[in-house]
């Protein structure tokens, strides 16, 4: 089921949560809404799910306008950050809820409900805790049950609001890999909200980067990382060094007020000056983090610190020590006019 969003607006008092959003979600894809808190991503998700109402604009499911339709009539599965499991029901009854509240003529027999719930619990690998209550489960288990519950009504669209936000780092990583596998099996159009860029880049087919109620960029994980469309995306996804044209005109190769954005791993570092455009500096900090080595270089004659990342291999071929005098040179620069500088 494809989703089309056209000219969607939403305000809360003076705060503009969504500012003229246009977005096309393809059928069967797993889409991430990525952005800092307060950027409007959760509002957008809740409006798609029918839990909030937009001030204006249209929302189409497979070409059909659903703005006037209630949440209960949209056939959308919603997974909440804090699970929202029914605390007084067992795991089994939680998953069965959507099947039990169906109008009588559509309701399945008790045996069929039992069969479906058992199947879903097997799908999320938790059939062995069917009789427990939510308070007896771990966070990861709760979220899997919440997912099984949402899938029970065979939704056409699955919406997940920061589904892994309340879990600790290890469980989060496991669960997002698992979600990716599940999606590859079910192929249900899914949108999940996250503020974690790693999560979005690792799990999603496409990423929508949002900021201050607007969409900054839509693209595959590789596109948004490698070719950010705006300064905001540059700064929000991955680390970046900024160079102002007034000071480093050789780097920006442009006059007037412009800012060059350079990724830490796109900077060459050497002990000898190989290019007249290189900047001289001094190593202030060297830190090896797994496969990469991070170094901070203080540019000579200013108080700027430049962050540099190099592979362990390269680091071992050319060791760096605090206090070394070095020259740095960018391999890849992206220049934006000062006036469009992104704000975080």
């Amino acid at each position: 089921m494809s989703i089309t969003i056209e000219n969607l607006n939403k305000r809360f008092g003076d705060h503009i949560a969504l500012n003229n959003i246009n977005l096309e979600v393809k059928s069967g894809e797993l889409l991430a809404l990525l952005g800092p808190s307060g950027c409007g991503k959760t509002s957008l998700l809740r409006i798609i799910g029918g839990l909030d109402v937009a001030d204006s604009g249209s929302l189409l499911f497979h070409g059909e306008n659903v703005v006037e339709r209630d949440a209960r009539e949209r056939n959308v599965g919603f997974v909440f950050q804090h699970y929202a499991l029914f605390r007084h029901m067992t795991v089994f009854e939680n998953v069965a809820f959507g099947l039990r509240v169906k109008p009588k003529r559509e309701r399945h027999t008790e045996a069929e409900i039992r069969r479906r719930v058992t199947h879903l619990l097997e799908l999320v690998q938790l059939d062995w805790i069917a009789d427990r209550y939510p308070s007896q489960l771990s966070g990861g288990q709760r979220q899997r049950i919440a997912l099984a519950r949402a899938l029970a009504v065979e939704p056409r669209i699955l919406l997940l609001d920061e589904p892994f936000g309340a879990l600790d780092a290890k469980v989060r990583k496991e669960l997002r890999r698992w979600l990716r596998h599940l999606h590859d099996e079910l192929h249900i159009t899914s949108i999940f909200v996250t503020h974690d860029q790693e999560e979005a880049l690792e799990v999603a087919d496409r990423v929508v980067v949002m900021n201050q109620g607007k969409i900054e960029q839509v693209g595959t994980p590789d596109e948004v990382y490698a070719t950010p469309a705006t300064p905001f995306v540059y700064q929000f996804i991955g680390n970046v060094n900024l160079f102002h044209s007034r000071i480093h005109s050789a780097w920006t190769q442009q006059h007037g007020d412009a800012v060059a954005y350079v990724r830490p791993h796109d900077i060459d570092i050497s002990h000898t000056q190989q290019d007249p455009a290189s900047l001289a500096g001094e190593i202030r900090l060297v830190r090896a983090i797994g496969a990469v080595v991070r170094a901070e270089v203080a540019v000579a004659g200013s108080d700027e610190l430049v962050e540099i990342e190099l592979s362990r291999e390269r680091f071992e071929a050319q060791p760096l020590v605090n206090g070394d005098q070095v020259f740095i040179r960018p391999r890849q620069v992206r220049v934006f006019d000062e006036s469009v500088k992104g704000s975080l």
Partner: protein
Amino acid sequence: MSAQALQRKIATHESRGVTLALILLALTYLILFLGVPLYAVFYQAFSKGWALYWEALKEPDALSAVKLTVIAAAISVPANVVFGVAAAWAIAKFEFKGKSLLITLIDLPFAVSPVVSGLIYVLLFGAQGWFGPWLQAHDIKLIFAVPGIVLATIFVTFPFIARELIPLMQAQGKEEEEAAVSLGASGWQTFWRVTLPNIKWGLLYGVILCNARAMGEFGAVSVVSGHIRGLTNTMPLHVEILYNEYNFVAAFAVASLLALLALVTLGVKSLIEWQARRSGEPLHGTH
């Protein structure tokens, strides 16, 4: 260091002497102000033996007072359950203009003296009141009659259930309801299957307190009742009349029923608190 010695090191642990003194102080206070009066009620009630006690309760005026008290409670408690749940739901789960005004209004009966609440009804519905002539013209009698007593009881008891439920429902949030709706549940289904089971212990707790107050209310009911024996006397009013007539045995016999009700209320209340703790549902909206 032994475990006991270690425990004494914990900052919030006081020495045995201080603990004992505090417990003793609290106990003495309780016995003096609660235990002794309670004992006195039962002692006086039975001072002339079982036969007279029984005689006092079985007397027609006493029976009618018990009946009227039960009627007033039987109407006001369900009315306040409906109102309390509706108000708490509206306040906890929705945003609307005038919400804080509604919360203040719910607290009003706690803030004004019961006698004043009774007077308000007399001023509104009494013979000289605003609606008095209209009511008389239509031959409806509210003041100095049973409906007035029920109205006054509803007024003084309506904060109990709403006040109990508002913080509880606010703490629970509305995510479970949203989940239910997104799974296709209707408003009624959401209420019966999700909201109500989540608040059942808190609701029961509120009902118990509301009932105790409805049966024990004196001030407001006294103003609107008119003290007509056998007709508009509730149990507390009946106790007062008997006492003023120096009929101490009868007065304390009826009072002992009210005291018994209080003891039962306390018992049920502890039972509910214990059950709620066991089922993991916080009673007072705290996590």
